[in-house]
């Protein structure tokens, strides 16, 4: 088994899995019917992408593991998503802020992954990139609406961006397995996406009449499996059925 490739797939896929799970929490709880449906639609796209990734990872593992095992039966330290996506739905501005900060990255990432030497990864990217562009459109629109809206919506949107900003830099720091995969032309060289990411994000914040946070210290660790305190709660929700009823199926 190619351990580096396996871990790299998880590094990419776990972002979509955990963000999809977070968005799924809003099912029936969105602030309006349309946003509720939008968030769960995006969640569904992300989970669909995850299935493609995990089926591929299961093939590489080649030891009988299935996509469900990989999704549901790992321990917290074995999940390699960035810290950003596990942050909670504190209020709608946080949900939108988290989505926006991830979407801008995700779209640029998938565009690049279409050029991967790994044909499965490039195919998944080719499919997902169209979906990510819809997501980016949705979250960018809402950042502008809230930022350039009432005093209250502006304050909340600014607070969310300020709080989440500390998790953005991690998006561009490859973990050890990823570095090997970058050298082999399989992984996206995320270090090269950083400048245009902040440029795009800053442009939208400016249009939204929001301030770009000034920050010198950034959080990291998710891609090494060291997560924030929120992660355990997400996993207990995500894994409950498989833990309570092992091997259950639809």
């Amino acid at each position, binding site marked *: 088994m190619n351990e580096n490739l396996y871990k790299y797939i998880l590094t990419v896929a776990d972002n979509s899995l955990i963000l999809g799970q977070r968005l799924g929490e809003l099912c029936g709880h969105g602030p309006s019917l349309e946003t509720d449906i939008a968030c769960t639609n995006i969640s569904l796209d992300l989970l669909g992408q995850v299935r493609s990734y995990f089926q591929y990872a299961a093939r590489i593992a080649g030891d009988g593991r299935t996509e469900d095992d990989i999704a549901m039966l790992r321990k917290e330290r074995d999940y390699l998503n960035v810290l950003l996506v596990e942050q909670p739905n504190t209020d709608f501005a946080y949900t939108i802020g988290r989505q926006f900060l991830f979407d801008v990255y995700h779209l640029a990432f998938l565009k690049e992954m279409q050029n991967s030497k790994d044909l499965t990864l490039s*195919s998944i990217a080719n499919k997902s990139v169209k979906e990510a562009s819809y997501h980016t459109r949705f979250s960018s629109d809402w950042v502008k609406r809230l930022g350039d809206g009432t005093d209250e919506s502006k304050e909340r949107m600014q607070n969310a961006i300020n709080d989440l900003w500390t998790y953005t830099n991690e998006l561009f720091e490859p973990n050890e397995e990823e570095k090997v995969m970058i050298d082999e032309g399989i992984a996206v060289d995320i270090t090269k996406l950083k400048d245009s990411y902040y440029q795009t994000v800053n442009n939208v914040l400016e249009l939204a009449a929001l301030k770009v946070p000034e920050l010198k210290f950034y959080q990291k660790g998710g891609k090494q499996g060291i997560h924030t305190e929120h992660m355990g709660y997400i996993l207990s929700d995500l894994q409950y059925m498989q833990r309570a009823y092992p091997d259950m199926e639809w």
Partner: protein
Amino acid sequence: MNQIQHNVIESMMIAEQNIDEKLVPILTEVSDPEIPVLSIMDMGVVRSAIIENNMVKVEITPTYSGCPAMDVIGDDIKKALRDAGYKSQVDLILHPAWTTDWITPKGRQALEDYGIAAPLDAEADKDVLLNGKRIVTCTNCGSGNTHLVSQFGSTACKAQFQCDDCQEPFDYFKCLK
């Protein structure tokens, strides 16, 4: 979750549909579970169907990655083929990615008749979803005086619209290229 396996590499280079003539009538009978009037053949999701040693191999491609209809479609295809006396295997392929261009003219008409506005071309679609241009035609009264309610509708592939003349809410099938 394991009914259909994604099978990407083997099918990488098949851009054109490759469907055995004998199988067309059988597959045409299978419909999209979320849009029952629409055959999967008119939807363009069947990319190949060939007979090898009495075994039918079918490849389908999802409209959106998370489309929950794909598992049902896979099962329905197997059932239709079994009823016609064939064993079958259904694989899900991702490349080339599905586009709304693959919906046939007959399929577009079926969508409209069912109350879902058919996708516009990419440019017009952008004008509608981003710039609020009023060019989507109401499926109920035919008026062009309609507005976007939400970019995300009842399923991943649709957006929500409302007609300002007859007030009817309706789905618009988003352009995907």
